[in-house]
């Protein structure tokens, strides 16, 4: 889009600003008495947004500009823009390169015309107002437009008839200006409250606005502008220009302000007329973020009242007492869960600290959310442990978010959380969710949805942070960080934290608590490794090793269901066929993978116990839990099976109290570090659990909520 850009001289100096509705700006500045000794230059009526924002943010204006002429303003602008964008600024300024078709001649007529028609004639700055002469002619034309808009608004009100009748006559007596302003203030207030904690593209805003009953017909552009002038929202371009640090060379590329990714793709754009309007490919699925797209955000103002969690009142201090205090009582947690939850709760109560870590980070004085890792083994009952945390935040009027990379986890968690917090039902967000624009204090979302939030939550809990697609996706990590208030808290949940995080834990750089035992108090099944030839070879010779067959028979005899993980999708079918030949026919064997259209159906049948043996890949390494189960991993030395996924797959066994000792077997021709590491990790957790006395206690009756 294109936007108005003006420069205003106030008592403290010059300032450049952007405007969606220049009339609102003129009225605002005249009413707030900031016109003193001043001039207002309109720099452009329709500058591409990216350039306008660049001027606003990066132009150092000086007092000598008091005497600048139109030409000086224009060349000044161009100098600044070329400093920001280098040579590309010419292209951004206006489409300069019409498409030339090879046949040495006729160029595209349209491009030439477009260039002439649209941008150049309007980019000559002009004086709108000066203290000496008041409004200039052009300024008057501008104000005339303003009055037209006022009149237009008035007509609309009259037309609306009865309900406005009383106020209308009142307004007539006072003059229209006042009337307009209160209307606008009202809209501005609504705009600001709707945008609080949000980060939306203009196109998203339009939908959001209508969802919340702000009609398209209302003068919402002026409302946005007024909210912006009031400092309650931020307006910016969705793609940031390449930044230049002091001594560092300028970074080569632009980045997306919404998702943090590097934005490389620049195309000709009909919305802003520039030849190189950059857009972000990374977050395209959430609407197109581009250089000339307006990004609206609630302004974050350091406001202690709604910033950090309000400190508990005098009596509240006792609530924080660790294990046996009341807040833990109602959740029915096992001792291991209880201790971890209270550690996390203590972390929540800590006052926000100014940038932890080394001196140079502190020097930046940037407040970043504090982080905490809840490292809970598979089957520890993570969900129950977050209930007291959510409850603590909600009770103080804070906002809490539970995010996970996986949509099926969101859908599974939603009813459980809704049952626990009947007063604040969670808003459930995922791609295509019906509650997409609903506001709420408790939000349950896939990590992609966090792109639409900005410094919104006091507590952000990221579940399964090592799962696809969150793991190794800097965009989602950025989105998660953005969604948390600077003084807010971050809690990660994982059974298998990524390596960097484990290192940070070991260094002591990351606060954490381990939950080494399952909720039923039995140790994790330790995998055994059996050496067999590679699966491919077994299938080719149509010969399954006897050990493998025996262990399958042992499982089915004791009535357990069996997960068989393989590393390649194409092996599933032949393995299913092979097993069907050797396993008695009353035992149902199925295979499924990411390419299987009937996957959901088969998983349901497996959960219901109709399928006894399910052959699959890492896609089912987490999430699916059946009470009585064994796990077989074939080709456990495969490169797709890293330590984390081996631990996760092993974690499918022995989940229920009635059958805590599931069998986990790694079959592989070779030992790998991943297999050793997984076994070591499981043993270590069991050791810690035993030492802390979490194992074999009589709390097996605790049901999961």
């Amino acid at each position, binding site marked *: *889009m294109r936007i108005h850009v003006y420069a205003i001289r106030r008592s403290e100096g010059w300032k450049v600003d952007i405007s969606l509705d220049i009339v609102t700006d003129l009225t605002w500045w005249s009413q707030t008495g900031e016109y003193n000794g001043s001039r207002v230059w309109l720099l452009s009526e329709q500058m591409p947004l990216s350039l306008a924002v660049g001027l606003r943010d990066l132009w150092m204006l000086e007092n000598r500009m008091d005497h600048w002429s139109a030409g000086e303003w224009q060349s000044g602008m161009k100098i600044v823009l070329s400093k920001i964008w280098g040579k590309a600024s010419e292209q951004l300024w206006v489409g300069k390169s019409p*498409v030339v*078709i*090879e*046949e040495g*001649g*006729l*160029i*595209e*007529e*349209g*491009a030439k*015309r477009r260039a002439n028609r649209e941008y150049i004639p309007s980019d000559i700055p002009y004086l709108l107002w000066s203290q000496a002469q008041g409004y200039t002619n052009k300024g008057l034309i501008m104000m005339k437009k303003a009055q037209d808009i006022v009149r237009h608004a008035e007509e609309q009100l009259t037309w609306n008839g009865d309900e406005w009748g009383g106020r209308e006559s009142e307004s007539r007596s006072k003059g229209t200006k006042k009337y307009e302003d209160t209307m606008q203030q009202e809209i501005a207030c609504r705009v600001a409250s709707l945008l609080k904690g949000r980060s939306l593209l203009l196109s998203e805003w339009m939908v959001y606005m209508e969802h919340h009953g702000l009609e398209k017909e209302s003068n919402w552009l002026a409302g946005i502008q007024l909210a912006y002038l009031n400092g309650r929202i931020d307006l910016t371009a969705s793609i940031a220009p390449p930044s230049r640090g002091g001594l560092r060379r300028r970074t080569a590329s632009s980045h997306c302000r919404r998702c943090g990714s590097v934005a490389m*793709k620049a*195309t*000709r*754009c*009909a*919305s802003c007329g520039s030849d190189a*309007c950059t*857009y972000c*490919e990374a977050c*395209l*699925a959430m609407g*197109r973020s*581009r250089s000339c797209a307006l990004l609206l955000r609630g302004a974050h103002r350091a406001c202690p009242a709604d910033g950090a969690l309000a400190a508990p009142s005098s009596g509240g201090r006792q609530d924080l007492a660790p294990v046996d205090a009341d807040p833990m009582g109602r959740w029915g947690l096992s001792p291991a869960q209880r201790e971890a939850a209270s550690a996390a709760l203590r972390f929540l109560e800590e006052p926000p600290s100014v940038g932890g870590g080394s001196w140079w980070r502190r020097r930046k004085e940037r407040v970043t959310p504090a982080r905490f890792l809840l490292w809970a083994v598979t089957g520890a009952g993570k969900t129950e442990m977050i209930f007291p945390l959510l409850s603590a935040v909600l009770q103080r009027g804070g906002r809490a978010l539970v995010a996970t990379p996986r949509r099926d986890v969101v859908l599974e968690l939603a009813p459980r959380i809704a049952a626990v917090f009947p007063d604040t039902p969670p808003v459930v967000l995922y791609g295509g969710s019906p509650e997409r624009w609903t506001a709420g204090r408790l939000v349950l979302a896939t990590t992609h949805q966090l792109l639409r939030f900005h410094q919104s939550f006091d507590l952000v809990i990221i579940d399964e942070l090592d799962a696809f697609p969150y793991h190794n996706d800097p965009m989602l990590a950025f989105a998660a960080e953005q969604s948390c208030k600077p003084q807010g808290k971050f809690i990660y949940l994982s059974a298998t934290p990524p390596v960097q995080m484990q290192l940070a834990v070991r260094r002591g750089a990351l606060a954490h608590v381990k939950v080494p035992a399952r909720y039923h108090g039995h140790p994790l099944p330790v995998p055994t490794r059996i050496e067999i030839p590679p699966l491919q070879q077994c299938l080719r010779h149509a010969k399954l090793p006897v050990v493998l067959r025996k262990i399958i028979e042992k499982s089915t005899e004791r009535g357990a269901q069996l997960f068989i993980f393989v590393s390649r999708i194409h092996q599933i079918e032949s393995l299913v066929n092979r097993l069907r030949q050797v396993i008695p026919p009353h035992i149902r064997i199925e295979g499924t993978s990411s390419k299987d259209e009937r996957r959901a159906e088969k998983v349901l049948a497996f959960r219901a116990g109709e399928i006894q043996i399910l052959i699959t890949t890492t896609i089912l390494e987490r999430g699916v839990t059946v009470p009585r189960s064994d796990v077989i991993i074939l080709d456990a030395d495969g490169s797709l099976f890293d330590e984390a996924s081996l631990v996760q797959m092993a974690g499918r066994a022995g989940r229920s109290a009635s059958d805590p000792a599931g069998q986990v077997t790694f079959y592989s021709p070779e030992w790998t570090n991943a297999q050793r590491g997984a076994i070591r990790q499981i043993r270590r957790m069991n050791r810690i659990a035993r030492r802390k006395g979490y194992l074999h206690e009589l709390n097996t009756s605790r049901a999961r909520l």
Partner: protein
Amino acid sequence: MIERILAPLHALLAPPIPTCLACGKRMTKAAQGYPEICRACVAQIPWIIRPRCAVCGRSIGCPDCTRPGVAASRHFACNRSAVAYDPLMREWLAQYKYRGREAFTPIFQRMMGQAYKRMASELSGPPHAVSPWHIDAVTYVPLSPSRLRERGFNQAELLAIGAAAAAKAPLIDILERTRDTQKQSSKTRRERLSDMKSAFQLQPHAADVFQQILSRRRTLSKKNEIKILLIDDVYTTGSTLNYCSLALLQACTDLGISAQMYSLTWARS
């Protein structure tokens, strides 16, 4: 800190493996002519090599074109399309047009170029014909100004660049939309047909453009006849193309130029 120093080094030593633009999977070998997408995806493109319907270029039998009276109200000579509009192509176009994934542009342009060449060789008849079929100018179905601003690009215009480059013919921008019609995809056949009439007209500079085209023609034989190729993304009923053709033909008649309209679309549904 260490990471910050090492990251560029890693990137240098192990450059990221490119991923397929269409399916997102890692590419080991790029397909010939389409380096952005993987071989599996290229193999799935439903090219229309041999159209079944000589009029509209459909790859399957076409009841519309044989209906009585249709030929009289058709203002273009024939249509050809690059691909059949199957679910995969629908997905690609949706990604491109509605999501705004302009990285698809070069792919689509190359597809249009290929389709143009196929069309030209088909219409020229036997190889080494005396007067091979070629086009004098390429134009495209315009968007309304408001939709163009909203979307940021006109997919038909970008596709037309590909066709014009292959044809070595000038790309001209002379049509405009007189009013906003609703999105085509959300309408029934009957609504589309009635909605389109008089939706298109020529821009004021059209006369100049036609004169220029005439003066630049290579063949001097039929002096006052020009062939214009009209580009759009999808041919569904052909009504959009038909009304654009009508507008162009009328304008040419008014100028005393005899014109013939052809159309080429990216997909045929």
